[in-house]
């Protein structure tokens, strides 16, 4: 057990950081949050570095096969720790700007990261559920962090209700699957999957619905725009990037090891994927609030990613897993970049979230405008950006799995998405600046994160080969 503990350091390091930050705040109250920040970043960095362990030690499972330590786990844990690390930088600027105590936010982020690390390593349905709960509850609180604003409280409450609803689906589904298979371990559940009892089918369907809420797949996506809008900007970024990554990590492992390639399941998932692409892109089409726009766009991206998940179920040995992970890498970088840039403006009221507040940004803040345009072009999948190869890989896998209809739908909805992504670019570059704009935050760290993400988008767009080989 002790030896196992050493191996799962990426999971307990954020947890330890969480406890330390809370303890420190009670025992030695600090004037500012800088100590908490360094503690948080230290534990995240530790988790990030230790996550590379499985590469050195080979694939193993620990805790009686409940947690997997393999390349898959490593890729996801590195990604999640990286996202969290970058988000803490914008948290610092953001909460300072709003004069809010940031210490608790760091503690909550660390708690959520612990849950995410569990989800992506889980090889047991109960561990999966535990992880999902652990990542969700801190986020409900984080959403309502600006607790004096009505909208924030409303958003947090909405997220909590929907989240609880989703969890109940998940746990009931797990119970049914347990009933059908007599175990919660993936390996044994998979054995029961072959018998395809009604109990098992209903159980998996309910589990997928529960996870569908978490990844914001249509028709379970209606919470996303409201919650994205209500949450503080860095938290929204964290939600869009890290939660989606973790939930897809959990789903992808289910797809690899448990979910049987039955026609009913594939058909159901295909319908959900198609619906998600359509609803996400249609919803984003006419948004004028940039947070809602990004919420719908994140729904659309979930739809693209589901194609990869389906391809994985069809042939678990194929490259589809790497395609999903690669897409999540590119998506996380674009999302973090976009939200970090928006933190520069620190505006949370309705006007501040309106796209028109970005009019003519290229005149007043050329670098920020360029970065933002790069993010949006990358999300649209324009060549020379990371998003292009992300979509490219997914489409290739879709062809390999003979999913003609879904690949055509991906192409068509991408075209639709071009409309609203370009609308942002138009606002940035082709409109005259409007009135007075509140000054932006000056922060070296924030600029460094933006620069690093922007550079990563371009580098992955120009030369993705190293990352592709690494993920394979």
């Amino acid at each position, binding site marked *: 057990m002790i030896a196992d503990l050493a191996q799962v350091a990426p999971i307990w390091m954020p947890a330890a950081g969480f406890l330390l930050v809370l303890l420190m705040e009670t025992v030695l109250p600090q004037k500012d949050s800088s100590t908490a920040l360094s503690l948080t970043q230290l534990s995240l960095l530790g988790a990030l570095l230790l996550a590379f362990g499985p590469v050195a030690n080979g694939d193993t499972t620990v805790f009686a096969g409940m947690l997997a330590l393999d390349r898959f786990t490593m890729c996801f844990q590195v990604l999640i720790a990286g996202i969290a690390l970058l988000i803490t930088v914008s948290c610092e600027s953001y909460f300072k700007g709003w004069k809010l105590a940031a210490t608790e936010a760091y503690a909550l982020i660390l708690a959520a990261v612990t849950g995410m690390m569990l989800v992506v390593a889980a090889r047991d349905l109960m561990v999966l559920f535990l992880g999902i709960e652990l990542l969700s509850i801190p986020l409900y609180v984080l959403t309502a962090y600006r607790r004096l604003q009505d909208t924030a409280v409303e958003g947090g409450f909405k997220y909590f209700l929907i989240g609880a609803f989703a969890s109940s689906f998940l746990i009931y589904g797990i119970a049914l699957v347990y009933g059908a298979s007599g175990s919660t371990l993936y390996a044994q559940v998979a054995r029961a999957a072959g018998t395809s009892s009604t109990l098992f089918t209903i159980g998996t369907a309910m589990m997928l619905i529960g996870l569908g809420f978490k990844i914001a797949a249509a028709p379970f996506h209606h919470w996303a725009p409201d919650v994205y809008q209500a949450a503080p900007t860095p938290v929204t970024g964290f939600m869009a990037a890290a939660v989606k990554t973790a939930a897809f990590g959990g789903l992808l492992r289910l797809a690899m090891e448990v979910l049987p390639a039955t026609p009913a399941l594939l058909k159901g998932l295909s319908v959900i994927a198609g619906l998600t692409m359509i609803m996400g892109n249609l919803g984003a089409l006419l948004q004028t609030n940039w947070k809602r726009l990004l919420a719908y766009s994140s729904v659309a991206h979930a739809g693209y990613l589901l194609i990869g998940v389906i391809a994985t179920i069809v042939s678990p040995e194929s490259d589809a897993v790497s395609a999903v992970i690669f897409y999540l890498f590119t998506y996380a970088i674009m999302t973090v970049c976009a939200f970090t840039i928006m933190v520069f403006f620190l505006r949370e009221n309705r006007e501040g979230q309106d796209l028109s507040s970005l009019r003519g940004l290229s005149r007043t803040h050329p670098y920020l405008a360029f970065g933002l345009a790069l993010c949006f072009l990358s999300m649209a999948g324009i060549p*020379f950006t990371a998003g292009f190869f992300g979509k490219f890989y997914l489409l290739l896998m879709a062809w390999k799995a003979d999913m003609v209809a879904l690949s055509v739908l991906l192409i068509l909805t991408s075209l639709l998405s071009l409309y609203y992504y370009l609308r942002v670019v138009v606002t940035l*570059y082709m409109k005259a600046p409007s009135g007075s704009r509140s000054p932006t935050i000056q922060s070296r760290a924030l600029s460094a994160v933006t620069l690093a993400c922007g550079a990563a988008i371009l580098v992955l767009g120009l030369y993705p080969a190293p990352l592709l080989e690494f993920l394979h």
Partner: protein
Amino acid sequence: MNELGMLTALIALPLVGGILLALLPGLRPEPARILTFALMLVTFLLSLALLAIPAGSSWNEGPFPWVPRFGISYLLGADGIAALLILLTTLLAPLVLLASYGHVHDRIRQHCVLLLLMEAGVIGVFCALDLVLFYVFFEMSLIPLYFLVGIYGGARRVYAAFKFVIFTMAGSLLMLLGILYLIHKTGSAAYPDLLRVSLSATEQFYLFWAFAAAFAVKVPLVPFHTWLPDAHVEAPTGGSVILAGVTLKMGTYGLLRFALPLFPAAAVDAVPWFLALSVIGILYGALLAWAQRDMKKLIAYSSISHMGFVVLGLFALTGTATSGAVLQMVNHGIATGALFLLVGMLYERAHRRGLDDFGGLAQTMPVFSVFLVLATLSSIGLPGLNGFVGEFLILLGTFRDHPVAAALASLGVLLGAIYMLGLLKAVLFGPVRNHRSAAYSDLTIREVSMLCPLVILMFWIGLFPGPLLRRIEPCVNQMLEAPQLELSRHREEASPVPRTATLRDGSQP
């Protein structure tokens, strides 16, 4: 040649230059423009080396693995056709920059960066021999143009730029889907590999139309042409010149280089469609141009008509017609480029460009008038100027197999003369309708030096087309090899009935 060389240099020079220009801190706008001009001039001079490519062969660079997991490599190649189109690009780019002195007074550096990036993209399109690389360059040339139109254009610039991108992307995304299928099927995106792959008739059908969609929008073929008048009218002069001069050619080039040789059976089946659409384009474009009272719109619609000729020539699938089509791509770039430059010059003086706003300019602006007459005559296809050679070859080559299409197309030549001479009459001759026009100064030395290279080329190609055709023909024959084989197979399959008929006729005493 398998090492990096001239082609890479031609792409890298404007690309790296553009990036450096964007990043260089503290550079004033005017030095930036001079620097850009110098860079474009060097690129042009370097590209003259492409004339050394021996007829019938090509320069290749690569393949170097780029994304081995997807079978994508960095593979460039330039034969006679590509060389001509690259030369056209590198020639027009500095002229466009010179033109920008007249109308770009704000955000100059950004304008220069966009022009350089676009030049790199267009050169890349004409020499990329890996399909993904081609796609990347195809889009890379699109985005700067989008910004050029959207930032520096006229009143409805945002709408026009938007429409342009959405139309083009709709086509090119279908092509991407096709490219992905080819990679899935063969594991490689390299053109030489794909030429060896045998595809079933159904596969060819879908792939051909996916590729054709991307190129037909770009050309543009009727009915995908509606973005073009908007984009042309709203674009700044430089944008119009680049758009008409080179980016439309990316469509016809793509049809010739990729759609015809890779999917010959489907291409042969599609011939009637393309002939019909191009003839409709020729006539419809010409009639619309005739009806316009705005000079830029008139030239835009005439472009649709002229590009219809190019597509007609390509799909006639005879060496003569297709060579004529390639030559006509170059000719159209020169003539239409010159026309847009001239209209731009007039617009900078008058701030209007209606046909009815002028008159009698031959009196007040004699130098301008001479150039306008020459550009117009080249566009009409007057013997002795470049336009004649291309149109003549296209019609000659088409007539053998498709006399009706050729006859209808020659009607387009007639219409072309009517509306273009109408333009001359309204603007240069007749009564003076705008009394301020007496005050317009004639062309400056800068403007004359922009037009001179184009006029020289008009005469040179018109009088001595031989050297160019000698470069074009062997390459065209290579491209047409597979489709022509397919065509003769078709004829053999179709002929048994008439042949037995003649035999029976012959046996009867």
